[in-house]
């Protein structure tokens, strides 16, 4: 058949009363042709997921409801379809994969059974045939040893493998439309690359139309044929990948694209300040001991030697489980290292007890990943900021005065001090956290994935802020991230970690221009949109 597989016409989905806007999406129209990958891009709250879910008819009952327009799947309006008809379509003509494969798979059912379920619902094949078909599809998504995977439970698989199971289960009945809702966001770059590759392969081989939801322009650049940009529930721009990425028209699109950090590191001058932080053979070992039999040990970090000078930003880059956060938490002494030393201010604080530690706390502050959990919801942000200084005997007035200055510094109004965290946005909260850290006048600032949870636009601003305060206070910044682009933008030097070991360590430029270690190279290989030059438009 010709014509679009999916055509969305003036779709409007209403929000329940008392929301911050009337409709989640308003007059959204676009289409997906056979064998085409359409990326819907937008930041959180742009309504891209709502659009996807309304296609599947999976909008949360009672909360969201399509109030206008139509969604034509191969010419059939799914908005008016009966529940049973909708059920018949799901899995056969259209299917969906989700962001978090761990939670999207039923933890107590074997992977094979979960794929098999689709067949049970929609076909009347016998058990043997079904098993055959399942194994086949598992093969086609190149899962190692399908026979074994068939009886494995989701938690026994890696993130990538789980997502492959999801894809297998989505494609087992060759649907015309595959909806992928941020399918790689939760995955490490290397895995992400593989999954993206898989998706485009499958889609080519089977001529499936793909509606691909993402916030990451790297990913867009990687796989999109056409792009739809959404903001606050509206489609602001649509076109082929090249048009949109190379020559964006709408200011919002421009802003987003500008915000994407370039992979090529800015040239930075050598920092020669005094060494503020040094770790010596830092090790953290979890587990061990055990009552009857020895528990197996996990070496989260082993023999980590890093040195950060005043005014310098050291990036620790690695995938999840590489131990980069462990190192950060050891240095901040939130956890006690198993061995090795942490020299701060000519003093080894690795072994100090909580009590002995207290006077040294002020030297080193940390900003966490999740802005929503980093501030005590029950205390005004002012109280949170002054708490530290007052612990060190600063008078209340002095502390508050300082807090006001810092609020200005991080670009917030000082009057906001007596407001509560829930009244601020994620980005604003992260600014407040930075202010809180600065209030201690530290020499060392640890940013643990501090921008990972933020939308690109906000991310850029917070990165700027971090760099500014570094300069202003001549801070030694330890920047933990999984995102090479971000690292490229802000770090003087980079340490790449894998399985708790620093595999490569050097100037950002050197590491980026000619990576020594295989793992580092694989990381660059995987970086989405690496060989795509984004437009730099003012």
């Amino acid at each position, binding site marked *: 058949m010709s014509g679009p597989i999916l055509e969305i016409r003036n779709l409007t989905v209403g929000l329940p009363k008392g929301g911050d806007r009337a409709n989640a999406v308003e007059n959204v129209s676009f289409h997906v042709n056979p064998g085409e990958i359409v990326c819907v891009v937008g930041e959180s709250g742009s309504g891209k997921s709502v659009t996807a879910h309304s296609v599947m008819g999976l909008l949360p009952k009672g909360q969201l409801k399509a109030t206008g327009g139509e969604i034509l799947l191969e010419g059939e309006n799914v908005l008016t379809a009966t529940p049973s008809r909708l059920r018949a379509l799901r899995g056969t003509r259209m299917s969906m994969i989700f962001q978090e494969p761990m939670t999207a798979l039923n933890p107590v059912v074997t992977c094979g059974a979960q794929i098999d379920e689709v067949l049970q619902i929609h076909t009347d094949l016998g058990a043997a045939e079904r098993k055959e078909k399942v194994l086949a599809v598992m093969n086609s998504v190149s899962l190692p040893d399908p026979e074994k995977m068939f009886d494995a439970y989701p938690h026994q698989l890696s993130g990538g493998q789980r997502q492959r199971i999801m894809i297998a289960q989505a494609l087992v009945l060759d649907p015309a439309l595959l909806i992928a809702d941020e399918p790689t966001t939760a995955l490490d770059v290397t895995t992400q690359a593989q999954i993206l590759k898989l998706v485009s392969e499958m889609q080519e081989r089977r001529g499936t139309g793909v509606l691909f939801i993402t916030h990451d322009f790297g990913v867009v650049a990687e796989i999109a044929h056409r792009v739809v940009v959404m903001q606050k529930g509206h489609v602001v721009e649509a076109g082929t990948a090249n048009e949109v990425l190379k020559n964006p028209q709408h200011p919002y699109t421009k802003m987003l694209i500008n915000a994407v950090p370039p992979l090529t590191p800015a040239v930075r001058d050598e920092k020669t300040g005094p060494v503020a932080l040094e770790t010596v053979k830092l090790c953290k070992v979890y587990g061990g001991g055990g009552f009857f039999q020895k528990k197996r040990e996990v070496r989260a970090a082993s023999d980590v030697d890093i040195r950060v000078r005043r005014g310098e930003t050291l990036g620790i880059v690695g995938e999840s489980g590489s131990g980069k956060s462990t190192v950060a938490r050891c240095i901040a002494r939130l956890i006690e290292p198993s061995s090795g030393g942490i020299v701060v201010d000519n003093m080894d604080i690795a072994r100090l007890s909580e009590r002995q530690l207290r006077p040294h706390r002020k030297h080193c*502050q940390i900003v966490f990943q999740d802005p929503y959990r980093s501030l005590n919801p029950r205390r005004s942000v002012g109280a949170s900021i002054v*708490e*530290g200084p007052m612990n060190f005997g600063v008078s209340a007035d002095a502390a508050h005065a300082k807090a006001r200055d810092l609020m200005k510094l991080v670009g917030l109004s000082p009057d906001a001090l007596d407001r509560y965290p829930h009244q601020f946005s994620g980005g604003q909260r992260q600014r407040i956290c930075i202010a809180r850290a600065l209030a201690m006048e530290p020499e060392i600032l640890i940013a643990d994935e501090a921008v990972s949870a933020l939308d690109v636009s906000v991310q850029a601003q917070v990165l700027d*802020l971090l760099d500014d305060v570094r300069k202003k206070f001549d801070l030694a910044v330890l920047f933990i991230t999984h995102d090479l682009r971000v690292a490229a933008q802000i770090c003087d030097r980079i340490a790449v970690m894998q399985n708790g070991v620093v595999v490569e360590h050097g100037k950002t430029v050197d590491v980026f221009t000619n990576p020594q270690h295989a793992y580092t190279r694989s990381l660059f290989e995987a970086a989405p949109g690496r060989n795509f030059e984004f437009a730099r438009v003012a």
Partner: protein
Amino acid sequence: MTAPATTTPLADAADTPAPAKPTVWRKLFRNPAVLTGLAIVLVMVFIGLIAPLIATSDPSAINPAARNRLPMAESSMRADDGTRITVKHWMGTDTLGRDVFSRVVYGARVSIFIGVAVAAISIGVGLVVGLLAGYFRWLDSVIMRIMDGLMAIPAILLAIAVVSLSRAGLLSVIIAIVVPEVPRVVRLVRAVVLSVREEPYVEAARVSGTPTLKLLIRHVLPNTVAPLIVQGTFICASAILVEAILSFLGIGIPPEIPTWGNIMAEGRQLFRVFPHNILYPGIFLALTVLAVNMLGDGLRDTLDPKMEKRG
């Protein structure tokens, strides 16, 4: 590079703050369960408070001549000075000719007091112990072993033993009901502490050198309030019930202190002949416990949706 001062909050384009949630109080007063529960409880408390005013006679004044009178019956009794007083018994009299109505309204006092006292004490004790156990690893194992021990003894049996082995009285009954409740509270508090202590904002406070005690009080304690209020109501409700059960087993609070429990317990032998002895206090008791439970459910739904009662 733009100077930070110029990046105003407005600059956070697609990054708008979460819409302000309605305050807890407003939510509470929208919740029907909370409202009805609260209303009934307040009425009961009020009855208890003004018992001396509405009671038609001294709840422990016996009158053998007028025993087992049916509701609405009248009786007269000669005082020491020889004058005769006539009393109308709205709810009849018990086997000693005591006025059930008066006993029931006075019973409201004691029963509710027991509920509140038990809740207050067990929460108080449990909170302190729980905080310590939750935050200091080395204390934890010791405390929790003891708590496990207490938990392992079936609550009612423990209560029976405590009361009947010590001298029956208000205090011993309260203690008896508190003891088995404490470990449950401790576990609850401990669980909260364990989860909260990993929260970034607590770690942030640690990093900014906040002393442990301050940390507990300022950042951890507040998180226990909601679940404890909820748990408190449930403890209160079950305490009132347990008192009744102890009385039923003949080891409750001595009859001269009327509680709904022991009025029923005394009346239970005559259930079929004079049901009013069980009926009226029964209604009051069930109604109150029901109300407190409703209150608790409502509170949980609004304050602390995650937690499940007696879990």
